[in-house]
């Protein structure tokens, strides 16, 4: 059973992403972003279907410094972190099949 999607902020991000054994896919999103809402259920599905990655969300309204640190200029942006470092970046909403294909190497 996968653990679902957690929410990270300025105070929890470094520790959680840095100490994770598995890759962490971070979804930079906001309440006002339509395409973010479109991919939210897809990420829920991926989280429940794949135990070997973790999925976390960062609300850019609440954590603008994190968005700036990772040069997020468009949301949704998904960044895959491996050993605490960004390993892959996906910009814009995509269907589930395309997302899975893009992150396939981490699954």
């Amino acid at each position: 059973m996968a653990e679902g999607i957690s929410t990270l902020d300025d105070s929890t991000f470094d520790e959680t992403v840095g100490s994770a054994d598995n890759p962490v896919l971070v979804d930079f999103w906001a309440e006002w972003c339509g395409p973010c809402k479109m991919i939210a259920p897809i990420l829920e599905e991926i989280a429940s279907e794949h135990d070997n990655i973790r999925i976390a969300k960062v609300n850019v309204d609440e954590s603008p410094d994190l968005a700036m640190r990772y040069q997020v200029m468009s949301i949704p942006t998904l960044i895959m972190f491996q050993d605490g470092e960004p390993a892959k970046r996906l910009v814009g909403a995509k269907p589930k099949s395309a997302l899975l294909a893009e992150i396939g190497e981490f699954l």
Partner: protein
Amino acid sequence: MGVVQASPAYHERDMNGSGGTGSNDAAPCGTEPRDVIIVGSGPAGLTAAIYTARANLAPLVIEGEPSSTSDQPGGQLMLTTDVENYPGFPDGVMGPDLMVNFRAQAERFGAEFVTAKATSVDFSERPFSVWVGDECYRSRTVIVSTGAQSLMLGLPDEERLIGHGVSTCATCDGFFFRGQEIAVVGGGDSALEEAMFLTRFASKVYVVHRRDQLRASKIMQDRALANDRIEFLWNRQVVEIRGDDKLEGVMLIDTQTQERSALDVTGLFIAIGHRPNTELFADWLDRKPNGYLMTDAGSARTNIEGVFACGDVQDDYYRQAVTAAGSGCQAAIDAERWLEAQGH
């Protein structure tokens, strides 16, 4: 023209189909025909879904797939924030929330959804066939509501810098340009709406427009012209987009004098209009020279009996959420009455 020919997709499937006889009159797909398939899920498609679902026609909505390019489930309103002119919401409503509600209302009455894009259609015989990849669906009527999507400038590097300073979605990306100088290209309502929205974040918004007057509605013009964070650059066109990892600026040309000038902006929001999503139907449905589908005046009927069109895919004039919804209702009623007349 396309009415009597099988589409290329038909032939391909016929030849590759398992155990196919190779005969052209073999059924292109085996599913039990439905009464209504709706292709597209903006205000038009979902209104058609609400009406046909309430008429017990169990519509199947092929709603599209998530994207950030204004061609996605929920349609163009998914890329907006406040919608102030949709009746029934005196304080306005968020575009994505409105569309989530449209969909929930259709679902409540039994509409079914496929979250993928239709990939080909065959309208050569009834029931019609609609493919989503290898999946084939048949239906006695098809309602086309695939809408329109944002036009791009077509410049080198434009595609590469999307998400890195170039944007077609002010509401998605405006937030990241706090305190910066940015530009909006276009002169219609959507360009001015984006410019107004972007002044919440940007220190300055240039509106680059190739003419010396705006196409936008009077109320939007008045608001934009009165906004001191907006500066209009008239008779200018973007001819070059500069930047390696992210946008660093654009080159403009004066359409009168041909003089070139650089504009240092970190964001470029493109709102130069839309093109209808009609490629899928090009072999079958009559289109206007500008690509929009033709419908009989005052109805949603196309040139093929049993195929109806509604919303922006057939409307190059009003293009409002409420007119799209209205035409979706027309398509639903047209489809319902046509089925009745056929004895279904």
